[in-house]
């Protein structure tokens, strides 16, 4: 019995450590965002702010107080725009293609294999020519072209997961439709698509999070309010000379809110989505 009790004590100690490890860094980011500059520039630090100061949030979210704020809002808008466009394009072109890969496996699956393979390549392998192409045709600093570039990241991921999901939809359902004379379009849109929707939602969300997270291409290809995305705005904020620690922290908290909320609400389906492609013999 004694070893059992010791085990329980150790277990709870480990869990408390784990919770602290997960929470403390992010909690500190939140506290910083709510502290005044004076509280954050003392030695040693004031762990609990004297009073809650929301000026940094105001500076970021209200237009007109200074240029930073409006740039942050532009970043938010562009991030949403770029991520949504990239996900919509990717999903729209991968559904019919994945259906073919699933239903008519054959020579064409080499395309699927290539697509999955490109997922492993570093962005730096495409970045240089894409930069030259975009700058020649004058499409640098443009949300739509950035969204197309994001397809290089999202598309391989989508085609892999959507194909795996269509594989799990029984072919019998389609056979019945074939007898009724349904063509490809009807089979996809009336039979496969409705059954695919839940998985599609997960794939779309995961892709959205990937696009939201993207920094490298956005840093290279955007430079103004036209297309600059949130990660670039925040990293620029942080690389400035002044030490507006609370402002940087507030930007970080705001940029984390959408993915953290999505993650907390939809954890189960997100993890299942990530696992889908891989665990299958």
């Amino acid at each position: 019995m004694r070893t059992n009790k010791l085990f329980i004590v150790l277990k709870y100690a480990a869990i408390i450590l784990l919770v602290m490890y997960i929470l403390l860094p992010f909690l500190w980011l939140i506290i910083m965002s709510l502290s005044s500059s004076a509280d954050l520039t003392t030695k040693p630090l004031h762990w609990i702010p004297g009073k809650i100061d929301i000026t940094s949030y105001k500076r970021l979210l209200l237009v007109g107080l200074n240029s930073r704020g409006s740039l942050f809002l532009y970043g938010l808008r562009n991030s949403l725009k770029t991520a949504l466009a990239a996900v919509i394009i990717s999903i729209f072109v991968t559904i019919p293609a994945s259906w073919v890969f699933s239903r008519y496996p054959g020579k064409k699956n080499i395309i699927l294999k290539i697509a999955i393979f490109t997922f492993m390549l570093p962005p730096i392998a495409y970045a240089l020519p894409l930069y030259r192409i975009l700058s020649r045709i004058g499409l640098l600093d443009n949300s739509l072209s950035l969204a197309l570039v994001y397809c290089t990241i999202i598309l391989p991921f989508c085609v892999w997961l959507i194909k795996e999901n269509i594989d799990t939809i029984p072919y019998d359902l389609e056979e019945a439709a074939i007898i009724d004379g349904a063509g490809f379009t009807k089979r996809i849109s009336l039979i496969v698509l409705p059954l695919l929707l839940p998985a599609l939602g997960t794939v779309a969300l995961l892709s959205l999070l990937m696009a939201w997270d993207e920094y490298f291409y956005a840093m290279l290809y955007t430079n103004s309010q036209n297309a600059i995305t949130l990660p670039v705005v925040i990293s620029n904020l942080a690389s400035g000379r002044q030490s507006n620690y609370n402002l940087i922290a507030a930007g970080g908290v705001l940029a984390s809110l959408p993915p953290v909320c999505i993650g907390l609400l939809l954890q189960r389906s997100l993890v299942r989505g990530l696992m889908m492609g891989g665990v299958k013999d």
Partner: protein
Amino acid sequence: MSIAEARKCNVLIVPMVVIMGTMIGWPLLQTFFLSFTDTTLMGLEPAGFVGWQNFVDAFHDDGFLSSLKVSLLFALVVVTSEMVLGTSVGLLVHQPFIGRSLVRALLILPWAVPTVVNAIMWRLIYNPEYGALNSLLFQLGIMKEYTSWLSNADRALPSIMFADVWKNFSLVALITLSALQTLPLSQIEAAKIDGAGAGQRFFYITLPHIIPSLQVALVLRIIETVKVFDIIYIMTKGGPANKTRSGSIFVYQEAFTNSRMGSGSAFAIIMVALIMILICMYLRVLTTKRSS
């Protein structure tokens, strides 16, 4: 499949192939061609064909070789730590305890925090003057005086690795947990009846059951870490003294800061080849394991 059907199939694939071709295939080919030239970023002077020169130079370039070492070291340390920590945490939160669902929900927090925010958060924590880490260690009496983390040549890379592990161990933990949840209880019960101890149950039932999932996590993380760019670039820009300059950062600097696209492309192609070798090695190990 009739000819008409096959033609229709092709039509359905075309949009994807067009986007992949223009956004992935064409640039990749161009990188390949650029790597044999001395093209500059602005491309004002006409590019000259230099043959294998860029590749020959690359293997004599200490900066490039040491940046590859940084990438590999980063991948090795970070992925190993994440796998060990993530698997242990997955096993821990699979146990029954009070507040279990809350802790499980919390696990997704580090993974959901955007990479850029994670990098900036840790940069603030590591700040030499007003960072939380210095203050904490000082107030606890562990350190006598404040020290620098990211601007110290020996501490910078481990500090970045620590930050990366914080974000990504949670993915491994979540994958482990979800694999554990599909473990058939009947197998465990049967083993118990047969007199298998806790250790035996773990090594003969639990571990084999979660290994396929862990392999997925392993591949995903190796692919991600070998091409690491953003977390390092935001935290140190590759400094101090290039001690944290990864392969991707080196290629970026060569092509965009030094505006040498030709040799930058050659470096990029070498990185691609390296990643391909890593993946082939992994697949080799996997298939020999399965067949034996």
